[in-house]
């Protein structure tokens, strides 16, 4: 079983988000970066499938030089080798371009399965996996909670809305987008970190992949959302704020 896991490096969850000078993206100097959380679960699922079925796990990521750090972390957790599509892009990447780059990098690998997170924590388009499947001509399923290998196919559990689920049987090769939380994430061991240094990382510059690089979506402006509600922010010590809140809930909102 050859499994490709596509991961994205995103600004860390608690980063301070300051806009850059043209107001179209963030000031990157302020940011620290980490693996997109749903992608970490896709990687975990891939590693567990490999443990069960044997084979190989190849990590693919598209992004600037700094992305190598995230790729190394994936190798330290147990992926066998990696492909880094090196972009020069500063700012938000166009989702269709990203998906094209990833599909081009994945295609020569002829994988049985491609796993990725269901969406990114930064742009949140939630479609890289589906576009990749279409470009590669693979079947796909999104928001996957469980992956059960069967003879030449996979039976996956998809999450639907409002507490409903559904099993879907898919032929290989297939792309699955993985929901967060489906397995417990492993940590990289010291041995894993050491080994990762010797694992193969193939760097491919974007120019070699020959994609149609016209942007499909342009961000005109990024800004803080306007409050839709008049929020009363309380102030003071914890005790003072608690007292005010109880007072307001009793006599202003009258809900207790």
């Amino acid at each position, binding site marked *: 079983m050859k499994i490709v896991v596509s991961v994205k490096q995103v*600004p860390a969850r608690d980063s301070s*988000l300051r806009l850059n000078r043209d107001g179209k993206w963030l000031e990157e100097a302020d940011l620290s970066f980490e693996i997109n959380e749903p992608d970490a679960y896709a990687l975990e699922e891939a590693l567990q499938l490999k443990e069960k079925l044997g084979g190989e796990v190849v990590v693919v990521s598209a992004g600037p030089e700094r992305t190598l750090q995230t790729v190394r972390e994936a190798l330290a957790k147990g992926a066998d080798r990696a492909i880094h599509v090196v972009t020069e892009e500063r700012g938000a990447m166009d*989702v269709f371009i990203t*998906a094209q780059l990833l599909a081009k990098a994945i295609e020569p690998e002829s994988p049985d399965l491609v796993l990725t997170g269901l969406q990114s*924590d*930064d742009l*949140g*388009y*939630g*479609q890289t996996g*589906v*576009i990749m*499947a*279409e*470009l590669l001509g693979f*079947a796909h*399923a*999104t*928001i996957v909670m469980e992956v059960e290998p069967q003879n030449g196919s996979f039976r996956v559990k998809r*999450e*639907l*809305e*409002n*507490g*409903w*689920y*559904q*099993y*879907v*049987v*898919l032929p290989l090769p297939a792309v699955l987008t993985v929901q*967060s*939380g489906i397995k417990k994430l492993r940590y990289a061991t010291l041995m894993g970190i050491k080994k990762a240094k010797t694992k193969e990382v193939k760097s491919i510059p974007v120019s070699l992949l020959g994609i*149609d690089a016209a942007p*499909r*979506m*342009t*961000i*005109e*402006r*990024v*800004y*803080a*959302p306007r409050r*839709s*509600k*008049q*929020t*009363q922010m*309380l102030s003071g010590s914890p005790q003072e*704020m*608690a*007292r005010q*809140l*109880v007072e*307001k*809930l009793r006599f202003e*909102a009258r*809900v*207790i």
Partner: protein
Amino acid sequence: MSVIAVLEQADHQWNRLSFEAIEAGRKAAQIQNVPLEAAIFGAGIESLAREAAGYGVSKVWALDHELLQNYTPDGYAAALEQLVKREEPSLILFPHTYQVRDYAPKVAARFGKALASDVVDIRADGSEAIFVRQLFQGKLNADVKLGGPPQFASVQAGAFRSVPVGPAAAPVEQVGVQLEGSAIRSKPETPFRETQRTVDLGAANIIVSVGRGIKEKENISVVEELANVLHAELGASRPICDNGWLPMERQVGSSGQSVSPKLYLAVGISGAIQHLVGMKGAKTIVAINKDENAPIFETADYGIAGDLFEVVPALVEEFKKAQG
């Protein structure tokens, strides 16, 4: 040219977000100065299509085929591709449902396009539509422009208000979808619910919900005490249930329960949209979070930016005092 709002049904029941997509479509159609139409998928959907004709659209396209009875990404994508090729709409607008997330990007990709997903507003720049999307789980907004037609976008639940149905004034037209069973690769089984729910958060008057900010399973008791004092149900955001710190049935949000209590206290919850759609119907919302920029404060009536481990015990004391 037209704007086509794609409606969603399962087992001949509407997904109510369909009508929000129609309203979003109305706005976009005005901006682009083209008629608004609707499209619906399924098998034997005449009566639903006629009902849709009462929502102020100029036409309803029925993509009616036995292979569209059960949703599959291959079937739906092929059917919609045929309509888009035939009608060449300027914009196809979807409700941002889990189903749409599964097939809409596939259709868009066939036209070399991407989907402006999870849009919260549509504005005009002359006759061009600007789509407003959320970034970083709602911490920032972005104005996005799409290229030439066909454009594809999906709208977030609750971002547009649906209007009531009127008399069915618009014609219904069959698309005459061509589909082969062999082209449908995935085999869906019947949807199911995991277990019978024993907790009905939907009926609760007061809910105290806990999120990532609680840090460890052992700390849940801090919030549990607050729930006890208020005789409230305990709810949670997704990561808490994913970690197994509270059972799944206590999850509030798009994949859990939708609630509308009198009072909702969100403790250590940042306010990802998936959570907000499940609780923004609450009458009064209180948010306690250490990050004063957390999106939850956008939705809250009362906000406390502070350390929950100091604020919650203080609240427990004050509520006890208030109850005498």
